[in-house]
């Protein structure tokens, strides 16, 4: 996992440089940690692919919005946004990933379902409402980044569809999430 995280940090940093986003090194490290914990398997593969083909991407100055750039692919492989307990605030470190998705969706016109999920604590129907709020927080970011409202459907599963079994902080943290499904 440590190697994975480093790869992800490198990848995220590269993307940030290419996009010209000025952020501090501290924020980049947080992004690395999230990517490593989140879509781990996908990130590893795509990071390797990105490393292999990155020079080609740099050599092509022509914009081709229909095709995913390999670096973009690394971010697009991440599909999960995590939340704090009883919160629907999207952390800054999820923004590059969401912007990458928004860019892809806006240029391809693809439809997306944004799912909202919660941990098992709290009552079931409250969690349906909280999951809805989480999915909507992600929806708003996609809208602000050029995706049209008609492309986005949201659904809340509350605590009904955990990503991790278990009844501890680790399981809860991975269950408090929003997933981008397309």
């Amino acid at each position, binding site marked *: 996992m440590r190697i994975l995280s480093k790869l992800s940090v490198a990848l995220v940093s590269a993307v940030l440089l290419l996009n010209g986003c000025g952020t501090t090194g501290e924020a980049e490290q947080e992004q690395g940690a999230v990517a490593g914990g989140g879509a781990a398997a996908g990130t590893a593969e795509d990071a390797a692919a990105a490393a292999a083909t990155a020079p080609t991407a740099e050599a092509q100055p022509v914009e081709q919005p229909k095709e995913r750039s390999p670096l973009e692919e690394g971010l697009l492989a991440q599909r999960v946004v995590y939340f704090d307990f*009883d919160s629907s605030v999207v952390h800054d470190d999820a923004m590059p990933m969401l912007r990458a998705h928004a860019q892809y969706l806006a240029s391809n016109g693809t439809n997306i379902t944004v799912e909202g999920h919660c941990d098992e604590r709290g*009552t*079931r*129907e409250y969690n*349906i409402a909280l999951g809805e*709020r989480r999915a*909507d927080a992600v929806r708003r970011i996609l809208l602000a980044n050029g995706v049209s409202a008609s492309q986005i459907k949201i659904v809340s599963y509350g605590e*009904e569809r955990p990503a991790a079994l278990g009844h501890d902080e680790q399981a809860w943290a991975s269950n408090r999430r929003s997933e981008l499904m397309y």
Partner: protein
Amino acid sequence: MLRKQLTIILFCLFLGNLAQAAPLTIEITQGVESALPVAIVPFGVEGARKPPDDIAKIVSMDLARTGRFDPMDEKDMLARPSAPENLKFQNWRLMQREALVIGKVKHESGDRYAISFWLFDVYKETQLAAFNITGTESGFRAVAHKISDIIYEKLTGEPGAFSTRIAYITATPDKKDKLQKEYSLWIADADGFNPQILLKSKEPVYSPAWSPDGQKIAYVSHERGKQQRIVIQEWLSGARNITTMPLNGRQSSPAWSPDGKKLAFTNHKDGNAEIYVLDLSSKNVQQITNHWAIETEPVWTPDGRSIIFTSDRGGRPQLYKTSANGGAVTRLTFEGVENARAAVSPDGNMIAMVTAIRNDSTNRLEYKIAVMESATGYLSILTDGILDESPSFAPNGSMIIYATTTRRGRGELAAVSVDGSVKQSLAYEDEVREPAWSPLNNK
């Protein structure tokens, strides 16, 4: 501690897949010291045909489960009278029984039986009740529960709730992928027998709610386009109707008005949950709450005038109350970190809820069932679980059934008396959740 432990293990002998949803054990984990000593004598049998069930055993189980009665073990009985003329009260005084039930079953014709029973006060040597009931082979357990209802009412002055049903949801994990579950909606007798399945789905099913006449169940299903929708199902015929609302958004948390004419529900739109009321005949929808915070889990007060709901407008979930036409909102709960998912007792005097308390040694929130006196706001915590939820009152107000998660993470059902003195647990083979106790008139 004036507590008494008494355990009843009930082995259910069901065939086929029905066995999955019947409780494997019903255990009284806490009873009352003052439980009334009673004796339910095995009923005499007349005629050649043997009755399909042992009425005395069913009645004994029913009464014992309440924790308020201590039925005598059949094998300790000195005599087994089945008619008043053969009854010797001193036998039962010797065994320190205060109430006695005797009876007989006679096969009439076909699958029909005539059942007679008598209830006596042993010390006063008086007859408290005598009834003749006709029963069929398939409805034999129902007759036994009816007898339990009569005995309970005669001895406590309150109606029994033995002839009722409980709806609940099971979630069976897929054998290969434990995160994938098959959801089933069930209805069973209040003692766990006769479970029948109403719906099976790969998509989540939750929030079952009985109509006041006991004929229909509203619930939330993700079947259509995978977004949450309210379904109303007649449980006897199985006819289902996905409720369409003249609203944008997704709906959940159905709650029938006491007259059965309206349905309160939550509409989720743009990340905001608000409570609405649907008039079931005109299909008109009225918005009840209007706030940027979450408003959900509506329930009606028994007079139909108010709606109690959960809102996090104060930062964390708490209970609030408003008129059934909307308007001013009053906060009801102030104790505990969170209070949510209200259930109102049939007489309106008590509000049960899920209350979250921080455990100081683990620094974790623990969710327990609490009741609050409507008039005084006095809150008492009834359960000691870590993740108790979905409280539902018995229609006679005596017990609250709820879902609990064991320390090993298993979902079970449990029940507690409103004063906290009696506790029972119901273990199922599958993960079980969201019990909803039917109204009394659910025939």
